[in-house]
């Protein structure tokens, strides 16, 4: 059933039934378990205009168990660990996950997380503290700076020492 399910998702995605702001593809044609996604930064957020890459790894028990999802692009966001791209999102955890989620809807949930950060369970404490202290503008300008630095096609991912915060 698992592989059938991934095959089904693969077919639906290649048939073009997709969101314009999400592009999902197999990492390579040999495995249905590894995926690569690109999300468009949601408009009206500090991530607008950015291209955010995700790596998705399913296990053979997918969709009974959630896939592992992490950002490849560096993101300044309270629920994303800056260094590793690890994401804190309830639906990706065993107890809130249900097999009715698909890779597409997971990507949509991650996009939604970009729009509405959860400052109370921060993986990135700097980002979380900015929001919690009410400095939304400070947070937005930091997030925007990192978006320009890492998620905009025009800029080369250069190494800025101060970005190595976690």
């Amino acid at each position, binding site marked *: *059933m698992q592989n059938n*399910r991934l095959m089904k998702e693969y077919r639906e995605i290649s048939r073009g039934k997709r969101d314009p702001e999400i592009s999902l593809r197999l990492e390579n044609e040999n495995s249905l378990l590894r995926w690569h996604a690109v999300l468009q930064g949601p408009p009206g957020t500090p991530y607008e205009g950015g291209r955010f890459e995700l790596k998705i790894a399913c296990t053979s028990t997918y*969709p*009974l*168990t959630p896939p592992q999802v992490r950002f490849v692009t560096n993101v300044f966001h309270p629920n994303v660990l800056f260094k590793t791209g690890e994401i804190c999102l309830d639906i990706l955890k*065993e107890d809130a996950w*249900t*097999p*009715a989620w698909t890779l597409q809807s997971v990507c949509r949930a991650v996009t939604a997380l970009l729009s509405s950060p959860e400052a109370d369970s921060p993986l990135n404490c700097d980002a979380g503290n900015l929001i919690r202290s009410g400095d939304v503008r400070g947070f937005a300008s930091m997030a925007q700076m990192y978006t320009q630095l890492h998620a905009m096609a025009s800029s080369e991912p250069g190494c800025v020492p101060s970005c190595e915060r976690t």
Partner: protein
Amino acid sequence: MADDESEMLFDNSCDDASDAEEDDDDYSEFEQPSLAQAPRPFRCLRPDDLREMQAAAVKRVAETLCCEPSDATVLLRSFKWDAERVISSYFENPEGVLEKAGVCGSSNRAVIDAAAAQPYQCPICLEMVTAFSALGCGHRACTPCYSAYVGHKIDDEGTAAVRARCPLVKCRVQLTDALVNALATDAQRARYAVYLERAFVDDHPRLAWCPAPSCTHAILMVQPADGAPLTGAARVACACGEVFCFACLRDDHSPATCEQLRLWLIKCKDDSETYNWLQANTRACPACKTSVEKSGGCNHMTCRHASCGHEWCWVCAGPWKEHSGNFYTCNRFKETDDEEVKRKDLSKAALERYLHYYSRYINHHSSLMLEEKTRQAMEDKIAEMQALGSNWLDGQYLKEATESLIACRHALQYTYVYAFYLPADNHKELFQMAQRDLEMTTEDLSAEIEKPVEQIVRLTVLHHQQMSERRLANLFNAVEAHRVAEAQAALEAAHVPGALSRPQSQA
């Protein structure tokens, strides 16, 4: 019929007539609280009893609310198995209760493996199908997918399977045991039944599993007559012999409170490196420096070195002769009044103070570690007595004395935890006197039964044993009296603010 049926089955001796509600602000009356020293009533339940108790609660709710037993189970789970609260809350706000618990109303039944009129897309395998199963919420999935979902919850998520929900995204309806049992394999069904039972005990505030590794019993605390919630430590004994604290599931730690023990254990863990030496089982004789090994639990050490024979106390290394009668002061930490010394090094004083209590705590504790050895030694002694011509029954008093000794040591170790957290006041003075008395007779008893067989005098053993038991009871009475007095004072302060403000308004 307002009584909890599940309770009625098991409790027939629950008539606690303590009238704590007397509003008498006449404080000239000196009524000593009765110190029955009765432990809070509890029952040991076998797996069958637990099933029966659970079934009774489900039946009560299902019959009163006219709902499916499996829905009643979900409702009860979300109300911590308080059937009466389920019922009264339901009649107040049926929709709210159902929604909160994740139950569908009785008009929406679960469907198991039916055929849909029109093909639909199964949200799990994404195929177009007609066969489906659904909970009362009507969210369909094809039966093989639903079974795989249910099976995965049971096989891979342990007890959490009990709280699994409808597989549809964001639907909060709980899986019912009826649906699970219809879709799971035999092995999964069996495991699910175990999880249900575990969750029942875990969720029920007055139930706790016996912590003994292979024991399957649970302890049920009887509901107090006034419905007051359970608070604080409670010593309970399982039918398997395990004695533990109901509130924290740790070793019975009376007279210390759960919180005191928790803080104490953290403190000990933090400081353990520093005080490891205290646990070492050999020490040098203070007189001749020959190392002496502590073999039994007794603190009265006698140097075996030829010509020395010095007698000393294992704990404080002082001469043993200062440890009899009123000279026995080993249990007290002398808080110094010298202001200069106090100012000089407060942290050192704190450390010394802790060390004082800790060394005495750990000493009784490690004596207890030798418990099994002590029991075995006693068996050997009884056998030896038989060989010397007395019959087996004659030796049994030694066994009883050993059990008394163990009980006293057990309590003594925690008296140091209790005393450590006591403020220096009258009660502490009294408590430490009772503690000292108990410690003295306990050591006497220990010394007597550790003698070679031919030197043991039965009457002496019995005397020390009786003294120990009496002093143990005295100590607990003192603690209980203090607790009751403090609780009453707190109650008066809270309920009669007038009594407190009266003198002020006169001034």
